[in-house]
């Protein structure tokens, strides 16, 4: 493992399987009466959130606390200082406080990379979502959930067919997932209107389709992405109804999936837009499981980055 987790591409095949295996063993801790391990006692983890988030921050906080780390939540919302300077100043504050690990979410793509490589701090940096770039722990928890259902909970995802649908352009989840799933041997198809696909998507290790119905019968895991209206400054599709009709998951489309296929969503959902309530709460849905697995995955990442010797 590298010292930081900035991108899903940082993980080799063996690293990724190690994180998933570690998470599998740590998942048992969450079922016990005493949900606590002494492993990171005396270590400080700072949650540095420059952007709103509920589930990711809570998930990281629960993970760090279950490993007995001291957790400092730093919400930088409302800061008016210009981006580069404020990040540096904040970093130097964290360094002065003796942070061992920094979990950062930032609206600017690349902020975690800057924090990790600028030499401001000595802490291990975990990217918890940066702009429209990456969200590696989300990809790991998605892979964990898929592996549990499709591959018997061990090894990699060789041969699994994953279809990711929706707003790929603004989705850090999609990018991290494509990279990680490719590393783990899965076959990925992206489905989106042309306006919601990023430039250069043809170089990604996946297939691209504009039509949702066609890949559904050959899909083991279907991941619906949130339409990120807050990041949209222009009209990417004619209307919400039109989007729903062409790219939304409803009961009819769900019925096209193979019997054992699972439906995923990174949350928060726009019910009625990219996914109907009927499917989101239906038997194929593993959306709640994804949240549970998130804590185990983040425990695994924090343990592997902070649990061992500094030179790891």
């Amino acid at each position, binding site marked *: *493992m590298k010292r930081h987790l900035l991108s899903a591409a940082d993980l080799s095949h063996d690293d990724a399987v*190690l994180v998933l*295996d*570690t998470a599998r*063993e*740590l998942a*048992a801790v969450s079922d*016990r009466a*005493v949900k*606590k*391990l*002494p*492993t990171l006692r005396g270590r400080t983890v700072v949650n540095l959130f420059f952007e709103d988030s509920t589930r990711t921050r809570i998930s990281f906080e629960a993970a760090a606390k279950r490993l007995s780390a001291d957790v400092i939540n730093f919400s930088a919302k409302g800061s008016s200082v210009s981006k580069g300077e404020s990040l540096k100043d904040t970093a130097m504050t964290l360094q002065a406080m003796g942070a061992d690990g920094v979990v950062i979410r930032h609206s600017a793509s690349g902020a975690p990379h800057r924090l990790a490589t600028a030499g401001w701090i000595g802490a291990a940096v975990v990217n918890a979502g940066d702009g429209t770039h990456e969200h590696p722990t989300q990809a790991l928890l998605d892979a964990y959930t898929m592996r549990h259902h499709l591959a018997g909970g061990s090894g990699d995802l060789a041969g699994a067919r994953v279809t990711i649908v929706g707003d790929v352009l603004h989705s850090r989840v999609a990018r991290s997932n494509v990279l990680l799933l490719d590393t783990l041997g899965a076959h990925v198809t992206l489905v989106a209107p042309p306006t919601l696909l990023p430039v250069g998507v043809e170089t990604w290790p996946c297939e691209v389709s504009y039509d949702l119905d066609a890949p559904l019968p050959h899909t083991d895991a279907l991941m619906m992405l949130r339409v990120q209206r807050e990041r949209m400054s222009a009209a990417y599709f004619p209307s919400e109804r039109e989007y729903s009709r062409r790219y939304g998951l409803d009961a009819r489309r769900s019925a096209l999936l193979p019997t054992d296929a699972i439906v995923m969503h990174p949350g928060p959902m726009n019910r009625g837009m990219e996914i109907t309530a009927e499917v989101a709460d239906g038997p194929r849905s593993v959306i709640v499981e994804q949240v549970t697995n998130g804590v185990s995955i983040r425990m695994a990442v924090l*343990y*592997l*980055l*902070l*649990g*061992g*010797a*500094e*030179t*790891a």
Partner: protein
Amino acid sequence: MATRVLDQSDISRALSRIAHEILEREKGAANLVLMGIPSRGVPLAHRIAERIGAIEQGAAPPVGSVDITMFRDDLRMRPARPLARTEVPPGGIDGRTVVLVDDVLFSGRSIRAALDALSEIGRPRAVRLAVLVDRGHRELPIRADYVGKNVPTSLRETVRVRVVDSDGVDEVVIGEDA
């Protein structure tokens, strides 16, 4: 130069004796739980449990495993290690007599970690320790209740326990550390 100090039949006899001793001292197999410490302690625990079942002509006592990685005191001295499986038998360990099973007893630090790990899982009535080999050089006030063989060693030597389940052969070998 590696010297074999126990072969397959030595190990088999030692485990049988340990099974008898456990039954004698615990006055039967009721309320017993065997917890192996990964990796080699787990197959050894299973074998002792089988023997106890055979001697008592009843069901073998439940067997579990307890991973000590997260409880080690030398965690920070090496890169983070992969975890092993902690498996708690269906009946749990509360109120039971737990026999910890490990392959080699050396500094005693693994056992200290195992005791901490056990206390996170439940509150046993008592905890005993069974090891295949006691090589001495304790660094903590810990001793074994059931010992397969005492093997005096120097600190420069290494003791390797191999079991059929993971190594294809049953033997205990002493080697000189390079």
